[in-house]
């Protein structure tokens, strides 16, 4: 019950994410729906836009009351709050207009197809709203996060990491909420296209968890070395323990969801048992994500901490300090590093074979034949995410500040998202033996190969630059 907000400020931190980050995911899904011309996805997104528009009301009210509650508090400068308020009102108004247009089109086209003009109007309004939301969100985060305004010359670890984590951590969480909504809706309606969309969102969120976890690790150093007043390492460690569980939960949900997408290609149907297993993983993961987010909020949001909250005080307690100690022993470090090397051999091998087929090599095989290999690569990614996170804990402040670490993580995310295309594209799946893959698929294959090459090079260069 401690997760239920007890103040306007706490409510505002939570609900304001729906019209901003939620809108981002809805627009991504909407773009896919328009590109693939799937009416059910377009309709689902019109419904989501209308729901998000409803969230503008509690967002505005909680924001307005928060300003009143925080007025006069020197931690929250009035000028910054006013600037955030003005941009937010513009963004929320446009979001409300977008929601009304989306709802009207949904009702108007109930027994027919949505009109192209209306769909494009909603897309345009949504994109402009998202741009305004980005400005409003950035101004909102700036109000509380004083560490972002520290002199970079005095910092050992750049506060850009903290900035990135403040933004990124909301993507797997809110994306997961959108994914869970779409998925439950798909199960209720028993619609295959929506089931695939929900599974896709789970996999995408699982991939986004990797950069989120890494930026979180770097942020810990940025706000504790040198220490920042009011930020406790013990509270951070409590958040890190739950973040590790969240990483496990996201990985299980993401991999089981991806396996179902992969199997669907061959079987042409979903297994109900597997679908409900994914749902069970997703519900448990959602609970873990909620607790992780709550503990993360307690690190640097004194305004949401209740007098009855008992925060940890001993920075040596918890799993993460114990893991840091263990992985620094050569008997633990070397086995996980060896596994990491096995993992990237598997990932690169499978990425190379499938991508070369798409690019026009060994055309005697259909794409479906090489697609059979993908689980080996996905298990390689899974192995490397866990072994990589363990290895990182051995000396995270050093690894994270190496210049090749950022491109490694960026291209890991891009490479993993690009591989998803292989299991989702209808045109690629239809490529028979002797046939050329579509040109768009070839560009994706080139992106996959480039990304995983940069990931391996970035990783190998870490100890030497």
């Amino acid at each position, binding site marked *: 019950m401690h997760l239920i907000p007890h103040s306007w400020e706490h409510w505002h931190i939570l609900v304001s994410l729906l019209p901003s980050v939620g809108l981002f995911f809805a627009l991504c899904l909407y773009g896919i729906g328009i590109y693939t011309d799937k009416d059910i996805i377009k309709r689902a997104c019109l419904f989501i836009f209308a729901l998000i528009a409803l969230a503008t009301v509690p967002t505005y009210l909680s924001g307005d009351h928060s300003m009143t509650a925080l007025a006069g508090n020197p931690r929250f400068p009035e000028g910054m709050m006013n600037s955030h308020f003005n941009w937010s009102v513009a963004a929320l108004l446009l979001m409300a207009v977008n929601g009304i247009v989306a709802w009207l089109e949904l009702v108007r086209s109930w027994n027919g197809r949505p009109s192209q003009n209306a769909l494009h109007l909603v897309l345009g309004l949504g994109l402009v709203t998202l741009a305004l939301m980005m400005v409003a969100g950035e101004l909102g985060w700036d109000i509380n996060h004083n560490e972002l305004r520290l002199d970079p010359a005095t910092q050992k670890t750049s506060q850009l990491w903290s900035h990135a984590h403040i933004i990124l951590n909301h993507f797997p969480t809110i994306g997961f909420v959108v994914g869970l909504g779409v998925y439950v809706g798909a199960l209720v309606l028993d619609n295959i296209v929506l089931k695939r969309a929900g599974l896709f969102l789970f996999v995408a969120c699982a991939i986004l968890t990797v950069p989120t976890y890494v930026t979180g690790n770097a942020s810990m150093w940025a706000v504790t070395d040198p220490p920042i007043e009011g930020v406790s390492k013990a509270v951070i460690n409590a958040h890190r323990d739950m973040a590790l569980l969240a990483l496990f939960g996201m990985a299980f949900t993401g991999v089981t969801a991806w*396996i179902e997408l*992969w*199997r669907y290609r*061959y*079987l042409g149907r979903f297994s109900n048992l597997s679908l409900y297993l994914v749902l069970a993983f997703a519900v448990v993961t959602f609970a873990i994500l909620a607790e992780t987010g709550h503990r993360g909020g307690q690190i640097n949001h004194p305004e949401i901490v209740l007098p009855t909250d008992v925060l940890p005080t001993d920075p040596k307690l918890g799993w993460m300090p114990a893991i840091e100690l263990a992985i620094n022993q*050569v*008997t*633990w470090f*070397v*086995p*996980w590093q*060896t*596994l990491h090397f*096995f993992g990237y051999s598997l990932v690169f091998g499978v990425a190379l074979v499938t991508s070369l087929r798409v690019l026009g090599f060994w055309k005697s095989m259909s794409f479906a034949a090489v697609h*059979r290999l993908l*689980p*080996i690569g996905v*298990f*390689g990614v*899974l*192995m490397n995410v866990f072994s990589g996170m363990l290895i990182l804990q051995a000396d995270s402040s050093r690894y994270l500040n190496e210049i090749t670490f950022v491109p490694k993580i960026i291209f890991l995310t891009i490479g993993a998202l690009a591989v998803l295309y292989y299991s989702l594209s209808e045109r690629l799946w239809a490529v028979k033996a002797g046939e050329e893959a579509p040109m768009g698929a070839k560009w994706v294959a080139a992106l996959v190969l480039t990304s995983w090459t940069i990931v391996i090079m970035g990783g190998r260069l870490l100890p030497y630059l």
Partner: protein
Amino acid sequence: MLSGNGFIILMVILVSGSVLGLAGLAVYCLNKTVDQSEG
């Protein structure tokens, strides 16, 4: 008793063997479900 190096080698074999073995088993089972549906 194993020496330091012997213990490291044992750990490398245990960790890699168990994780790769599990992954291999999972890949085998997945392929079998697809093979059965095609057969």
